[in-house]
């Protein structure tokens, strides 16, 4: 009798194991999209029965139709393209400047005393406050927008690099010193890899801010771009266009962040932390 029970319980445990193991990735995706899916259905239903008025809050299908329309007439690519172009260059410039200054300030005490107070003071200024100045200096075309994005990206990356470098375990640096490493070798073989995790955190939050500032820049004066679509939607009383643009930004932002996340996972596979499966 007890033998029978044992067999039974074993079967159950095998079953549950298989269920947990097999679709790990799929399960993640399903779980992650469960709530959005429910919300979409509710939204659609509420629009359908008229709780949401369509001239204020169009149904998901209407938003989707709008997106499809823009895809079909080809206008979407131009807008997305120019936005991606701006964020790409703003991001690259912001990150490069942050890497150079952050490495300097993090590694050299003198540079820290010289530069860090100034940079911290600039950080206290909300980046949007620069907009008028940038427009006066560089006009309303691309350079002022890209500069604004670069400024927004710069600070989180800079802060994370500095704290990453300053947080490198002195004990690991001593190992390098024992082998008589030059400053350059110390940086390349110990400090950079050891501060990589916090650098990548900085890059991801920098990219998030980049999206914020690209939209801000395009809201304030552009003739093309996803942010410009928002303005058009507002001026032509078409909430479907506004919501479609927001959805677009969400998709683009999420996609670019996932790419960085993937890069991060690949670069940091050696890390021992929760959230990483064995």
């Amino acid at each position, binding site marked *: 009798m007890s033998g029978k029970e044992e067999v039974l319980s074993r079967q159950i445990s095998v079953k549950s194991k298989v269920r947990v193991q097999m679709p790990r990735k799929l399960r993640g995706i399903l779980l992650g999209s469960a709530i959005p899916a429910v919300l979409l259905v509710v939204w659609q239903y509420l629009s359908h029965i008229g709780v949401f008025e369509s001239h204020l809050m169009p149904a998901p299908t209407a938003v989707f139709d709008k997106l499809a329309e823009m895809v079909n007439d080809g206008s979407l690519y131009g807008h997305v393209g120019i936005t991606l172009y701006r964020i790409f260059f703003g991001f690259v410039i912001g990150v490069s400047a942050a890497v150079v200054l952050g490495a300097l300030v993090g590694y050299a005490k003198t540079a820290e005393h010289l530069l860090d107070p100034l940079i911290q003071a600039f950080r206290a200024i909300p980046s949007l406050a620069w907009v008028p100045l940038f427009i006066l200096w560089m006009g309303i075309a691309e350079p002022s927008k890209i500069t604004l994005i670069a400024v927004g990206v710069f600070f989180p990356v800079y802060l994370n690099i500095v704290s990453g470098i300053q947080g490198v375990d002195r004990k*690991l640096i001593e190992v390098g010193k*024992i082998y008589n490493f030059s400053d350059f070798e110390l940086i390349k073989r110990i400090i950079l890899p050891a501060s*990589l995790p916090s650098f990548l955190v900085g890059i991801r939050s920098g990219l998030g801010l980049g999206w914020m500032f690209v939209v801000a820049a395009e809201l304030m004066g552009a003739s093309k771009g996803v942010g410009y679509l928002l303005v058009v939607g507002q001026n032509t009383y078409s909430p479907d266009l506004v919501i479609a643009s927001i959805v677009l930004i969400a998709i683009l932002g999420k996609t670019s962040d996932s790419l960085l996340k993937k890069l991060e996972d690949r670069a940091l596979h050696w890390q021992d932390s929760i959230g990483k499966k064995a």
Partner: protein
Amino acid sequence: MKMLALENISRTFANGSAGFKNVSLEAEKGEVIGVLGTSGCGKSTLLRVLSGLDQEYTGHVKVNGNAIKSVHKDIGIIFQEPRLMPWLTALENIAFGLKGAAKKQKQAEEFTNLVGLAGFEGHYPKDLSGGMAQRVSIARSLITKPEILLLDEPFSALDAFTKMQLQDLLLSIWKQYQTTMVLVTHDIDEALYLCDRIIILRGQPGEVYKELTVQQPRPRSRGDAELARQKEEILSFLNLNKTSQEDHYEKSNTPAK
């Protein structure tokens, strides 16, 4: 000429109330010297001075008769913690101190085998046990073929069994390379099992209080009666002549037998 000679070295902190002072010591090639002492008497500081990591000392450190004042390629150190680079595999960690790519791989593999880690070359530190990580760190310091190896309580964080295994590993390495070693430890048994000579530091700042020789030929038996007698002697040195304040101090710091 002596392999290693310390001439009247002092390194103190906090207005001379911590660190160590007036330490003189000579070691022949292949000699294993143990440094025993209560917590805080400057043993780690002494090794940092010898390794060249701490250069603010007075006195002279001589290797083969030449005074040195900075890190030296003939001196290697094994820290209390493994201090592995978490982003490198075991093999890459072992090769960390080698310059030049030529033969790097082959040498690293050779030392991986030497410390008994064949099959774990590709593991990252997070996937190694404490004993394995310490083996990697031993191999990393040996691969540059130092003539003098400094060890700062290298096995103190390990369980008794792993500890004995690594002590024997150290002896086999010593046999093969005739490395001169300075071994700081809290463990009297370990000192008696491994060392030719034992220096006892006492005080704040620490000074050489006694020096004794262990005559027993290697390999020694861990239960040897003569070693047990010397252990008694060392214990009495560590406890002798104490002021009441030290009494209190040592009760809480002498390692339990």
